[in-house]
């Protein structure tokens, strides 16, 4: 599915002294099968943006389009099944007695047959390396385990677009790597992923395209090398290194990922 936001504005508490314009006309598209990274600092409107993708929040003005159709015309359950949203700290919403039951919540709500529900629970837990936790109580797990289970709970809907809001916040490096690997795996299945994060390094590793959000506006959208090299203030560590080297050695090119930078530097060193 192709998801598109057109000139989306969102005002919280309109007409009160606490009125805040969180989104000031955001336009961006998510192509099928891509990982779109959305980066921006705190208060840039990332989380508000995320909640517009399945219309948990409705735009004050502007439109959300699903395959070119106005998403507001779609039944909400269908939209929310196709656009899976994982909130920041999603483990705060774990509730069932066992992990398996919790992950089964969404597919059951979809009215799937019990056999299919079980298949989806197994698959999504497996995908996040958490199948061995299925019989445990979600409240007795470690932080990283809870996070994986919570994401599996959304993945079990088998959404066409998966929106992840700061999915790695507060995770240890190993769990984080595993999670990023799982995200890349989903792209392989033709699903699209919206990866929202303030961590430029991890966005650089997974994103096919990057949108830069600032104060409720899209500052730039494009291929990672374009965005990161043209906006030096928002460049991941690897890009900052490559940019320094590039001043003297233009041959380094515009690598973005850690591995690409390493290879470029290696080539430079061996080539003299």
């Amino acid at each position, binding site marked *: 599915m192709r998801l598109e936001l057109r000139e989306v504005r969102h005002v919280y508490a309109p007409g009160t002294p606490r009125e805040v314009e969180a989104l000031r006309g955001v336009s961006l598209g998510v192509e099928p099968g891509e990982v779109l990274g959305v980066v921006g600092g705190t208060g840039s409107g990332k989380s508000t943006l995320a909640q517009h993708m399945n219309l948990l929040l409705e735009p004050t003005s502007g439109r959300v389009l699903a395959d070119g159709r106005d998403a507001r015309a779609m039944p909400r359950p269908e939209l929310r099944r196709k656009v899976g*949203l994982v909130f920041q700290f999603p483990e705060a919403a774990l509730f069932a007695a066992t992990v398996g039951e919790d992950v089964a919540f969404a597919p059951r709500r979809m009215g799937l047959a019990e056999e299919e529900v079980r298949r989806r629970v197994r698959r999504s837990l497996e995908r996040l390396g958490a199948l061995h936790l299925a019989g445990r109580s979600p409240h007795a797990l470690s932080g990283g385990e809870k996070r994986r289970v919570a994401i599996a709970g959304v993945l079990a809907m088998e959404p066409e677009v998966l929106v992840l809001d700061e999915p790695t916040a507060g995770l240890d490096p190993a769990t984080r790597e595993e999670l990023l690997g799982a995200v890349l795996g989903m792209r392989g299945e033709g699903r699209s992923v919206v990866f929202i994060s303030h961590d430029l390094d991890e966005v650089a590793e997974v994103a096919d395209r990057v949108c830069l959000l600032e104060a409720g506006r899209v500052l730039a959208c494009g291929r990672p090398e374009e965005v990161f090299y043209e906006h030096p203030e928002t460049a991941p560590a690897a890009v900052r290194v490559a940019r320094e080297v590039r001043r003297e050695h233009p041959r380094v090119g515009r690598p973005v990922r850690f591995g690409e930078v390493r290879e470029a530097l290696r080539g430079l060193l061996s080539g003299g």
Partner: protein
Amino acid sequence: MTMVGGGSSIGQYYPAPSPLHALDPRAKLLAAAALVVGLFLVDSMAGMLLVLAAVGVAAAISRVPPGAFGRLLRPVLFIVALTALFQVLFSREGPLLVGWGPLEVHEGGVRTGVFLALRIALLVTSAALVTATTPPVALADAMEDLLSPLRRLRFPAHEMAMMMTIALRFIPTLDEEAQKIMRAQAARGADFSEGGVAGRLRAVLPVLVPLTVGAFRRADELAEAMESRGYRGGEGRTRYRELRFGWRDVATLGAAVLLTGGAAAL
């Protein structure tokens, strides 16, 4: 999807630069208490009207929008109307005003009905005047101070006030948390508009369980944070905001007591 109300309905504090806001919270509490006692002692219409006028003047001084009192009164309005109606219809005191078959309206009934309605409405309004013009924390401090003589009888005044303060402090936090959880479950297909007992329960459990788990976690964290900052209960504890009873407070309290006495005597 239904969401929990925006928080402004609970707490009911309306910040405004009014003389009523500036009063010592103890004075306001005691004055309101005096007024409440007065309301129960008054048995003449003149006395009731005197209290009504006094509460009206206080409400005007407070600069709290009248709509705020209206919202507070709305839930009790039904009870007020019902009790007044019962009095009007079933009391057989005084001369008969209207008779219609078995239904008889007597003058005494109308009088008690109006009286009861005014009494309840004024009761709620004077309590609302205190909560609307006093920040919850100041109110808890005042309660602690007023209850402190009871400490000799081993009544935990400080602990009560601290519990109240903490509870009030966490209402907006829990409200926010509940909304977050509801949205997260809605993203997983939860439907909060479902009807029927089973449907309601199905919708409520996925919110209630994580909310409770979160509240316990928060309580633990708060207890640890308080202990690590040296909190050891009320003994010998000083306050950042000292309560001061000034001449305005004495005057207000005096006026309230006089008014009560006057209204009861009328």
